């Protein structure tokens, strides 16, 4: 058991000693500050993105009509609700199934089996959004329409939102439910990977001392491992949620893209991200009042970016370390 099981944390980043020679204090200060110029490029780009978006807004638009359900007057609340309505259930599914897969892989599967199934989960995250969308639109949507919706309306109608009062308006099978399922599949690898890494980082001693007390593997997992990984699990939830909120083209293709509040899970709606891509065509058109749509999209983009930044900062703070390069989580 020689190498550490988790990637080494960045070690003491002492600056390299300056080569011997005459070095005034000015030069020393320069030496210390200079590396920050390339190191802060990500921050600079992030700030640039915010500034460009801010500059493209019309601040007077951030008024009452902006924070309303009136889509015709560029109210955004329908899209905010649409985003949450799809992302939250997708996240709940991805956390539940993700935890099950992570426990299976980290606790129950023999190593050789896990090394066969893990790549499937990783690969799931590599599939481009647009391919998910295509598959969802042409394969899953007709299947849902023909087989799944009749079943759920018959047997699950007691769940609020599952009873059908009309069929999916677009007639293609696109629906809130389909968007949730596709989003779930897209963020499943994110949550699974992060939780799997957290579970694998449990010290061997701690795991064994649970078993040595006469606990079963399940009992140690539930009573020791999961409390031990609490932060990592919350971090996975935040990062998965950020992913789901930002998903654009796949959601557009399976949600029906109609700006209205859904009345049940077979209905169509729209999300913030999918609206941006849907409206870009009109953004190119300069009307008599200038790039009106463009201002709106920049404003909507700022709201979306604010949410994803908040969620990501929280998630990163909880996880502290980046374990996972695969899948770019």
């Amino acid at each position, binding site marked *: 058991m*020689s*190498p550490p099981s988790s990637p080494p944390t*960045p070690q003491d980043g002492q600056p*390299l000693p300056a080569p011997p020679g005459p070095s005034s204090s000015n030069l020393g200060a320069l030496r210390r500050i200079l590396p*920050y110029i390339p*190191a802060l490029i990500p921050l600079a780009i992030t700030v640039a993105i915010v500034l460009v978006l801010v500059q493209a807004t019309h601040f007077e638009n951030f008024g009452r009509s902006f924070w309303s359900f009136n889509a015709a007057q560029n109210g955004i609340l329908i899209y905010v609700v649409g985003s949450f309505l799809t992302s939250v259930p997708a996240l709940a599914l991805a956390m539940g199934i993700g935890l099950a897969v992570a426990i299976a892989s980290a606790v129950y599967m023999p190593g050789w089996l896990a090394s066969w199934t893990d790549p499937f*989960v990783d690969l799931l995250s590599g599939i*481009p959004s*647009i391919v998910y969308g295509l598959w969802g639109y042409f394969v899953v949507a007709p299947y849902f329409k023909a087989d799944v919706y009749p079943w759920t309306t018959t047997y699950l109608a007691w769940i609020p939102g599952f009873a059908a009062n009309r069929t999916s308006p677009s007639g293609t099978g696109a629906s809130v439910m389909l968007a949730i399922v596709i989003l779930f599949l897209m963020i499943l690898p994110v949550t699974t990977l992060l939780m799997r890494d957290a579970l694998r980082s449990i010290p061997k001693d701690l795991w064994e001392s649970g078993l040595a007390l006469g606990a079963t593997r399940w009992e140690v997992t539930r009573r020791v491992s999961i409390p031990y990984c609490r932060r990592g699990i919350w971090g996975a939830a935040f990062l998965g949620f950020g992913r789901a909120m930002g998903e654009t*083209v796949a959601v557009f293709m399976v949600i029906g893209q109609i700006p209205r509040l859904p009345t049940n899970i077979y209905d169509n709606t729209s999300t913030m991200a999918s609206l941006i891509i849907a409206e870009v065509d009109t953004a190119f058109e300069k009307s008599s009042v200038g790039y009106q749509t463009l201002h709106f999209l920049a404003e909507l983009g700022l709201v979306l970016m604010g949410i994803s930044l908040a969620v990501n900062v929280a998630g990163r703070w909880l996880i502290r370390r980046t374990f996972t390069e695969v899948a770019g989580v």
Partner: protein
Amino acid sequence: MSGTALAAPALAASDDLRRDRSGGVWRRTWFDRIVGWALPLTVLVAVIPILDLAYWICVRALPSFTLATLTTNPSGAGGGLYAPLVGTLEILLLATTTAVAFGLIGGLVTAEYLDEAGAGVVRVTANVMAGIPSIIVGLFGFLAFVLAFGWGASLAAAGVTLGVFMTPYVFRATDLAYASIPPHIREAALGSGARPIQYLLRVATPIALPQVLSGVFLAMAIGVGETAPLYLTTSAAAIPPSGLFVPAGALSLYIWEDFQNPLPGAVHIAFEAAFLLLVIVVGLNVLVRLIGQRARRRLEGLFQ
């Protein structure tokens, strides 16, 4: 009690390993076993969709997929995918160049030249940037490059925008690669009289390079499938780009443009493009895995 004849005749129930059923041992053990069988089955939730997706993309793309698909330009709702394929590769080349230019040096100095507190802050910013949705980056590219810089919908705007999106992945991979070199290697190198720059070029870089490369390939795999940033910064041109400032088509754009096109040939084009895209993405991911595994094994060797 048959097998325990050697023991004292009066073995208390709590000392009898076989008869002991206290505290629901039987129930607890069986529950654990059932969980052990049931939980691995949940992996099917990930495996079945991926197989189904691969199956349907192949079934709908391959019958019409010929060599001509790769060598002819699209025309109307038919033709091949030569232009978008070339466009994808050119956009990806430009994007990778941009991302490496922005991310590589930054990641390197973060790992090698910043103190712990500074590096911590920088890492947070890189992680936060990695969380910006691609549609936002696309909107930024549209506002900045297409409109403000006046590049129009073009290869340049698409490449740089996608490069901005890929930057944090390259940055983090480089940082991680250099930061995970064990400290004793650096101490040994500097202790034996190597100058810092010699350590960096002759010792650290050969160790870190495979991991950096695998990070770059990963960024490419993530970038190549992106649609939203490209849709906002270029358009689905039917011929390969003749310069930086003309539109360049891309595979993902063709899927996007064609999936709702009622003409019968259009859907074929979409599936063929999806098939090509999947091949590229899976190929890049396999590359990431192979290089990453070798890099890890080498790094583990250094810890012994």
